[in-house]
């Protein structure tokens, strides 16, 4: 297993597609910093006695963008092997396909939360630095108060990556896996809120994008399209299900299918 892990780690490190996804994830930092700066300018332009207002948690915004980028990274790590035919080279070198899939999942499932953690802590720091002591609602507190939501969002990043990877292993197609991922990421939660009561809340609570906030929320969640019915442990469990079910479904298929 160490050999497969090391090989997949080398592959990820030398994959341009993966780097593009990681760069896209990291790009959430300047985006968040810019929003914070714009807010600070607007705040400062107000006369001191009219300065009220809030800023939505920028770590959450950054996490939202990152989940897609890192999910695509997971999807491409498998589907690009199929589209280029390299999967044959891979399976000829490592005939134990389950081991290859596990190694890919382990590598991507580790790189994604580490990246997310680094970006989120940077976003937290940048927001604090830019907004500083302005008494705006939603300015993040000390890391000792904020680490729980940040950790939950890092876990969410790992979940999306493994979800993308699993769907790609099932479909063997970059287009199909990215489409599934993108649909779960945006249109499905948008549509779920229009389901009849109480199903909008129920479905919204188990969708992948709303789980981190149910484990630990960085701030007011008013107006979220997601539901809020799960206890933290339930949300964490649902995360594990989203991450592992496609992978476990792909496992037996991978073994019997022609490469």
């Amino acid at each position, binding site marked *: 297993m160490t*050999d497969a892990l090391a090989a*997949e780690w080398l*592959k990820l490190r030398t994959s341009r597609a993966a780097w593009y996804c990681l760069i896209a994830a990291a790009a959430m930092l300047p985006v968040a910093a810019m929003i914070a700066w714009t807010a600070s300018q607007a705040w400062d332009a107000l006369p001191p006695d009219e300065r009220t207002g809030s800023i939505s948690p920028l770590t959450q915004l950054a996490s939202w963008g990152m989940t897609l980028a890192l999910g695509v990274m997971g999807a491409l790590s498998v589907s690009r092997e199929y589209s280029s035919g390299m999967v044959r*080279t891979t399976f*000829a*070198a490592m005939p134990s396909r389950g081991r290859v899939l596990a190694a890919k999942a382990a590598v991507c499932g580790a790189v994604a939360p580490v990246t997310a953690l680094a970006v989120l802590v940077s976003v937290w720091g940048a927001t604090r630095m830019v907004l500083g002591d302005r008494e705006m609602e939603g300015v993040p507190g000390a890391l000792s108060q904020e680490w729980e939501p940040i950790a939950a969002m890092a876990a969410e990043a790992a979940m999306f990556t493994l979800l993308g990877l699993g769907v790609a292993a099932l479909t063997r197609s970059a287009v199909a896996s990215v489409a599934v991922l993108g649909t779960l990421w945006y249109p499905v939660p948008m549509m779920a809120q229009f389901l009849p009561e109480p199903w909008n809340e129920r479905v919204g609570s188990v969708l992948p994008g709303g789980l981190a906030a149910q484990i630990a929320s960085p701030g007011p969640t008013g107006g979220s399209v997601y539901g809020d019915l799960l206890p933290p442990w339930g949300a964490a469990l649902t995360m594990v299900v989203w991450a592992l079910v496609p992978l476990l479904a792909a496992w037996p298929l991978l073994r019997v299918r022609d490469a």
Partner: protein
Amino acid sequence: MSGPPPAAGLRPRADPEVRPLLRCPGRPARDTLAAVIEVDELTKRYGRTTAVDRLSFRAEPGAVTGFLGPNGAGKSTTMRALLGLDRPDGGRAHVLGGPYTRFRYPLRRVGALLDAGALDPGRSPRAHLHWLARSNRIPRAKADQALEWAGIAGAADRRAGGLSLGMRQRLGVAAALMGDPEVLVLDEPVNGLDPDGVRWMRELLRAQAADGRTVLLSSHLMGEVSQTADRLVVVARGGLVADTSVRALVEGSEGVLVRSPRPGDLARVLAGRGAGVEPGADGALTVTGMDVREVGEAAASAGIPLHGSAPVGISLEEAYMRLTADAGEAAR
């Protein structure tokens, strides 16, 4: 899973100057009688198409076995089955006495080049060989050495997608050989190579076989294989057409060129006696499976005059075309 066999590739070499990947002085003598590649009644279907139909052949060590057949004959499918990539619907394809998938570090036992394009176009050749080497515990130095020796060190850090087909073939060969395997399985390796590359490949494969290794080399062109291979396994439409030595095929490819004022009648008579008859452009017939004397006697006994007859050699290419064309007709 049982542990890997001791890897010959990791043994220090007595003389690293002697093109390391070509020679292997430390390799223990193997049982040269055992068939290293054993395809037995192999059948593979894709939907309704039968790509390989009860194909059986063997490839032995110390020889280059040419695996020959027109496009779509089932060569690549057979090779994929041999490497455990495709699951056979019947029969088996074994390497070194068992299925390929049992190897933990297969690149050190069997080197394969199936599709030179089967790599991430965004990754450099060096990175490609490095991950392959790492997956099979082959020292990284061997991968770098293989790049040098395959003549692609100059392009080793460029994008693989920008390489010419010939360069990618060389990269594929480097990948196949860096683990110092005792078996080589190469699918159309000379595609895209320039004349220098073709000669390089031919000499390389000859040297590998001379070293006691087993080489299975597929091609759809007789010309590519006849100068390299010792044995020929010819397939068409998924089935075996001939399993022969190159020499036997040459010797069996003598024919008789015969002219007659009644070529149609003569052709019927000769075909009735089991000969192969092919009409030429100028009314002459090319007859196979009979010598000049037999043709003359057959014509005389049927009362057909001959204006001339002479033995002719048929090119291997032509013999091959006939073999595969016959298989095509039989299947129709």
